[in-house]
């Protein structure tokens, strides 16, 4: 029997670590997909096509208005019924977080692109750049500073949101923690550790976002 809390923590560390990797895998996959999807969303939203804007707006409002957990349930329980495709709970968590994150990152990207002076776009077009070149060489590099801090904030929300995966049955860090508690009854120690785990990931990101925002707000 382990005598102290630290000793117990040392013993269960490998098990908790495997759970943590699952949690981080969900979060990282969602962050990656959200970033790519968000860039696409932002560029499409800055083109100024009415119908496209309305469509993106609808998508954004839908994912903003309805809570994340509701989307998780809808995809996890509803998707197999409607389409016959049954996703694993892991894939389902990544998909829902990505769809949500892409709309949030997308709004940040769209806002960043639209905040640039119109002359930048016009000058690029006057030089004969293609739309692809215009965005890659002129607009996105300039908007990057304005986009980065709020995008990091979306990342921390995605990491926090990944905790909800336990509620559709993913065996991630919280579930593993609960299994350890069932064996050891060390509620405070394990939930305290989980608290610290998420804090240690999210807090540096929040600090980075704030520091970058301060540094770049005069740029």
């Amino acid at each position: 029997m382990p005598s102290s809390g630290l000793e117990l923590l040392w013993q269960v560390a490998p098990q908790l670590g495997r759970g943590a990797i699952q949690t981080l895998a969900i979060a990282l996959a969602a962050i990656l997909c959200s970033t790519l999807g968000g860039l696409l969303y932002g560029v499409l939203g800055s083109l100024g096509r009415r119908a496209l804007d309305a469509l993106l707006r609808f998508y954004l409002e839908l994912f903003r208005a309805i809570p994340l957990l509701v989307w998780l349930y809808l995809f996890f329980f509803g998707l197999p019924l409607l389409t016959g495709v049954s996703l694993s709970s892991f894939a389902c968590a990544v998909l829902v977080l990505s769809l949500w994150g892409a709309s949030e990152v997308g709004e940040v990207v769209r806002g960043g692109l639209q905040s640039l002076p119109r002359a930048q776009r016009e000058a690029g077009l006057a030089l004969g750049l293609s739309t692809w070149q215009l965005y890659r060489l002129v607009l996105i590099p300039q908007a990057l500073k304005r986009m980065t801090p709020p995008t990091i904030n979306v990342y921390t929300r995605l990491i926090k949101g990944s905790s909800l995966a336990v509620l559709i049955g993913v065996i991630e860090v919280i579930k593993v923690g609960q299994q350890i508690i069932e064996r050891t009854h060390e509620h405070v120690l394990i939930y305290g550790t989980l608290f610290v785990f998420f804090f240690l990931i999210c807090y540096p990101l929040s600090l980075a976002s704030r520091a970058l925002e301060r540094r770049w707000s005069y740029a």
Partner: protein
Amino acid sequence: MTFDWAFLLGTLPAFFRALGLTVELGLIAIATSSLVALLCSSVLLLRLPVLGVLVRAYVELARNTPLLIQLFFIYFALPSLGLKLSGYSSAIVALTFMGGAYLTEVLRAGIEAVPRTQVEAGMAIGLSRWQLFRHVILPQAGVFSLPALFANFIFLVKETTVVSAVAVPELLYTTKNYIGLYSKTYEMLAVMTALCVLLFVPLSLLFRALERRLRHAQFGS
């Protein structure tokens, strides 16, 4: 697959109670969080030495951890420290813990957005500290904070869905419970979606309208 309308209608009373509970939890959380935020932002505004550090630590801790962990800690871990709360109480405490921190941050940002010259002008015409706060800082900080404040209120109502994890019979718990008991997944998801749209979409639209009005309010002043 057949859609079992009779079953759906039979569960409606339970679902409306659940919706009521969701709204109730949301309103209580908004009230208690606002109270915590008012206290915490006063501490920050008055630059109290030790309390200020504590408040800042609390805000960072609550904002950088998931609500679910906060909720589980309160519901499962606090009893071994001698504090046993029901699911309902845990839900309110957890929502207040998180919401208070978010709203503190909103109020702090609003107060900091009031130009320094406004405060100096107030002091120059001989306003007392309280008058300065009441007539100069509060009205302007209020206008600056309102959109973010409302966004966070809506956020809190949405976050109440998380407390389904500690068996509080709100919207999501009721849905999951019925799916587990009767396997009427289709029908229950339909009811849940309908009620969610009914509750959250108007909130969202209301917020947009408010945001537009307040943006104009700032220009006129």
